[in-house]
């Protein structure tokens, strides 16, 4: 039902008592930085949002390889909450090798099995945030003609890719990503 890697993580959390579960969540959170884009990696879609009110920036970077497998990288602003950091590390690892469609089809019920009832109760929305953002970027390839082509490799040949470390590239991507009119025109 769940991707193998994600299933292993779910199983690990389900076997932990509450205090160890929290420790493991914090440990994942501390490793979230490892999911940032690496030097020279390139992406098909980049979705970086900075929300004025909460001072948090969360960037989601999607690369779909020749076999249609997705690679997700994420960047998190300094104010991003610990639980969100943990879910970032868990999901980037757990969804490695899935196709965008598999990610879109993933039911969200596993999240509660990872974080436990108490955190679900007090942070019911936060825990789904990262999954929602990842699904959001994965929905783009299936929604736009442009990215359907990209998945086959056709568009990559004629369209510049977006180096993760290039700020201007990210801005350009953002414009593309949030421009429905442009998508429709394409």
């Amino acid at each position, binding site marked *: 039902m769940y991707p193998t890697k994600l299933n292993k993580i779910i199983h690990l959390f389900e076997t932990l008592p509450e205090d160890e579960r929290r420790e493991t969540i914090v440990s994942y959170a501390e490793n979230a930085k490892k999911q940032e884009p690496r030097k020279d990696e390139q992406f098909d879609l980049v979705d970086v949002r900075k*929300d004025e009110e909460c001072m948090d920036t969360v960037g989601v970077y999607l690369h779909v390889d020749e076999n249609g497998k997705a690679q997700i990288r994420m960047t998190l602003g300094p104010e991003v909450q610990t639980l969100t950091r943990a879910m970032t590390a868990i999901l980037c690892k757990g969804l490695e090798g899935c196709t965008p469609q598999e990610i879109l089809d993933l039911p969200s019920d596993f999240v509660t099995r990872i974080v436990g009832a108490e955190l679900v109760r007090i942070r019911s929305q936060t825990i789904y945030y990262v999954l929602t953002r990842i699904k959001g970027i994965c929905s783009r390839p299936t929604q736009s003609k442009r990215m359907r082509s990209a998945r086959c490799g056709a568009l990559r040949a004629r369209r510049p890719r977006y180096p993760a470390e290039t700020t201007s590239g990210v801005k350009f991507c953002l414009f593309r990503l949030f421009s429905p009119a442009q998508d429709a025109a394409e």
Partner: protein
Amino acid sequence: MATNPTQYAHPEALVETDWLEKHLKDEGIRIVESNEDVLLYDTGHIPGAVHIDWRADLQDQVIRDYITPEKFAELCSKNGITPDTTCIFYGDKANWWACYALWAFRLFGHEKVKVLNGGRDKWKAEGRPMTKERSTYPRANYSVPKKRFDKEIRAFADEALAQSKAKKPLIDVRSPGEFKGEVTHMPEYPQEGVLRGGHIPGAKSMPWKTATNEDNTFKSAPELAKIYFDQCGVKAGTDTVVYCRIGERSSHTWFVLTYLLGLDNVRNYDGSWTEWGNKVGAPIEKGA
């Protein structure tokens, strides 16, 4: 209370990071961390600090209200706090939740309260010590408070309405977008659902952050006086009600008005916009 103060009315209500680092092991104090990020304490905290969660520890888990005096006494006892303990609150988000926890402690009549100026972020930015070791203290015996000071420092919806009708100072400390009714919650935050946007008629918009400097410390007394006395029309001797969305940001403003400007008749309407914006028949104004 001076209308043109040169210093805080209660400077003793603040401690600076430098002072706290030198007094971590003082008898008679308890450092209390309270955050929006419920796991932040587990990632590291000020040595000796205990964690009090605003939702799990201070709020009733069934009814939308605070815990009973009995539960408050138990919470303090298990953290080694007595009525004589000076609780020094600090936390993330420029001390929103620290001020909220402090306000809740005051609801139960705990008087010895202080805030770490600049909060967790300033402490961390200055490279001061942090630990992951969970702090434990011998159990104390906190006697059950005889009453909750709801009447003195807390406003309910009907009182906020009366404040509005009487045209007395009513300060909305949410963001301008929330005040105008353009949004009903902060983006990406846990959603406390609200059906209507806008503000309580007659409320003045003064976002909580106006009271802070870049490093999350509080602005000086003359600056605060200008903001709240001159711009918000707050006066000594007149009831003032502050509100936000769930009462945490307004706790920050309540602390500023009560402790830094010395007003003694400020109440926090903790039902705030999540109550008002859902309340059938509640009058609402939109726009600036």
